[in-house]
């Protein structure tokens, strides 16, 4: 099994990541991937021109690894990949890419869903949105926390 977690401070090409993840794969029956994009509107509908993800050089990368490993341990999956951006991100750009391979599709769907729910609340980032009306720091929403709670052990 391969579990890979990467923090990218430059661009993130989801298509290239998926192509590489699929390449040479013949033992798994399923790959589920998720691509998260920066939105041009905040949760309250305000325009967002720039998203900044503040990150810590050790704690952030480690949190991605811990969550990817937890996903691999919980589900019947062959490989887990998470690639997450840090730094400045424009609307429409990819923030996060997750891919999970499994012999069976259900486990792959569950694993990708689980990993994203945990990333949305536990990954060590500090998210700041800025737009014409100024800037603000973002915390996990109640919905994010409820999504995470679905998986409580």
């Amino acid at each position, binding site marked *: 099994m391969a579990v890979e977690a990467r923090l990218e401070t430059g661009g993130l090409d989801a298509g290239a990541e998926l192509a590489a993840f699929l390449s040479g794969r013949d033992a798994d029956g399923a790959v589920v991937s998720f691509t998260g994009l920066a939105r041009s509107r905040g949760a309250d509908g305000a325009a967002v021109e720039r998203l900044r993800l*503040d990150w*810590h050089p050790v704690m952030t990368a480690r949190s991605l690894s811990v969550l990817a490993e937890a996903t691999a341990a919980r589900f019947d999956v062959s490989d887990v990949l998470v690639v997450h951006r840090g730094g400045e991100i424009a609307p429409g750009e990819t923030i996060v890419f997750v891919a999970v391979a499994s012999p069976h599709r259900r486990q792959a769907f569950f694993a990708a869903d689980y990993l994203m729910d945990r*990333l949305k609340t536990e990954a060590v980032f500090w998210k700041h949105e800025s737009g014409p009306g100024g800037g603000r720091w973002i915390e996990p929403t109640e919905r994010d926390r409820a999504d995470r709670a679905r998986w409580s052990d």
Partner: protein
Amino acid sequence: MIRLSVSFYGEIADRLGRERAMVFAVDDITVGEIRAELARQDEAATILLNPQIRAAVDSVIVDDDAGVRSGQDVVFFSIVSGG
């Protein structure tokens, strides 16, 4: 004498900057005492007295009673947003 690098992440970095070098003329110090000293020196740093501001020493999250040695990296950070 204890010499430390103290850094700030998230919303508090907007108010306090990214990093400060600090020197304490003592032999033992805790995270809580560093918090209190920063707040005493700088009114903007009174935000560190909010218990929602967590701390890490050498990238390991700790409580306020954790001891800190000279040369260690102390981080204070706002609530994480997730990815």
